[in-house]
């Protein structure tokens, strides 16, 4: 037996426009669209208007949802200052460290046996200057005339001697003068890197007006960096 095939009306196959003012096709739509008519909105309805009307329902729900979201957001925003409130207070601390700059050099004496016109020097970093304070320091060096009539100069002459230093890390001889001059900079107080080794070189006067023992002193001065 052949199943009955339902014949659809021709109008159902082709969308057909109709003016809602003319005749509401269904009571459902007449209720709904009547409301629209009150607002004077033109409405075009097709045979599929039963379908096209549904989005209007959804749209209404969406509008409600959007409104709900907006209200919820407004409520949330209003409460944020309370829930997420963040207030701070501070204490400023000033630390006056009163660090100590302290150095020592070893050995503290040297007795070269050079005669008049001769030169003598130490080697292998014979002297060591150490920063044993609590602050990084800059160190200066200066020499002095002798106690019995010799002058400290930049080259040996009559009654004039010449003394130089050579920092191991530098490798070149530098004059020691009466005037203070830089010796080492930013010498750390941290153990292991708080020392610098150096050598001294003495050039005796070319001639002397006396044969008394002569004593000179090399002075190192540290200041906080």
């Amino acid at each position: 037996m052949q199943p009955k095939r339902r014949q659809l009306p021709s109008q159902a196959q082709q969308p057909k426009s109709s003016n809602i003012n003319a005749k509401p096709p269904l009571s459902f739509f007449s209720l709904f669209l009547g409301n629209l008519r009150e607002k004077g909105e033109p409405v075009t309805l097709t045979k599929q208007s039963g379908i096209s009307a549904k989005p209007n329902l959804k749209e209404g729900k969406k509008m409600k949802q959007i409104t709900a979201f907006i209200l919820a957001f407004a409520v949330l925003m209003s409460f944020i200052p309370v829930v997420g409130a963040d207030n701070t207070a501070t204490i400023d601390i000033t630390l006056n460290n009163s660090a100590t700059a302290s150095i020592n050099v070893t050995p503290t004496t040297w007795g070269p046996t050079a005669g008049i016109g001769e030169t003598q020097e130490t080697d292998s970093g014979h002297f060591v200057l150490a920063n044993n304070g609590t602050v990084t320091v800059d160190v200066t060096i200066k020499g002095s005339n002798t106690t019995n009539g010799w002058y400290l100069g930049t080259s040996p002459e009559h009654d004039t001697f010449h003394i130089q230093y050579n920092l191991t890390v530098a490798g070149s001889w530098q004059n020691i003068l009466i005037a203070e001059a830089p010796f080492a900079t930013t010498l750390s107080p941290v153990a292991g890197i708080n020392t610098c080794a150096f050598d001294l070189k003495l050039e005796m006067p070319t001639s002397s007006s006396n044969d008394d023992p002569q004593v000179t002193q090399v002075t190192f001065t540290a200041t906080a960096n």
Partner: protein
Amino acid sequence: MRKLIAILIATVMACTFVPLVGAHQDTIVVTLTPSGTVNIDVTPGTWNGAGATIGSTGTSGATDFNLSNIGTVPVDVTIEAIDTTAWELDIATPAHDQFTLAFNVSVAGTWTHFDETPVAFIGDLPVSAEAQNWALFALEVEMPTSTSTNAAQETTITFTGTAA
């Protein structure tokens, strides 16, 4: 029966149509003014590290500092501090160009080190004075064992309050 059925159908349809009939929407804008504020205060706002020198420790009096909840809600408070221009704030031990900070809230009685990372200072600090809306505390600084500079150093301790 038919009438009843007709009434029932009409009721169902009316219920169904209500959202449609009321599709036109209006809104009520609700403005909610916060009724609570977080506000804390600490006094004094400065400290000299108890005059500590290099290699030594400076400690304030046990109740020298006072943090108060002057807001309208209970708060949790954190504490943190920053490096100075030449010294690094360390959580554990002092060293060359490295110092430490610690606090001791009177009610706790123990020292807690802190650094740049916020740590809990006190929790649920009440609002009302009757419920003790303040916390007395001490600070301690361990100075660097040595320093690369002789210049005075400054750091700032920051307390942050959030609603408990």
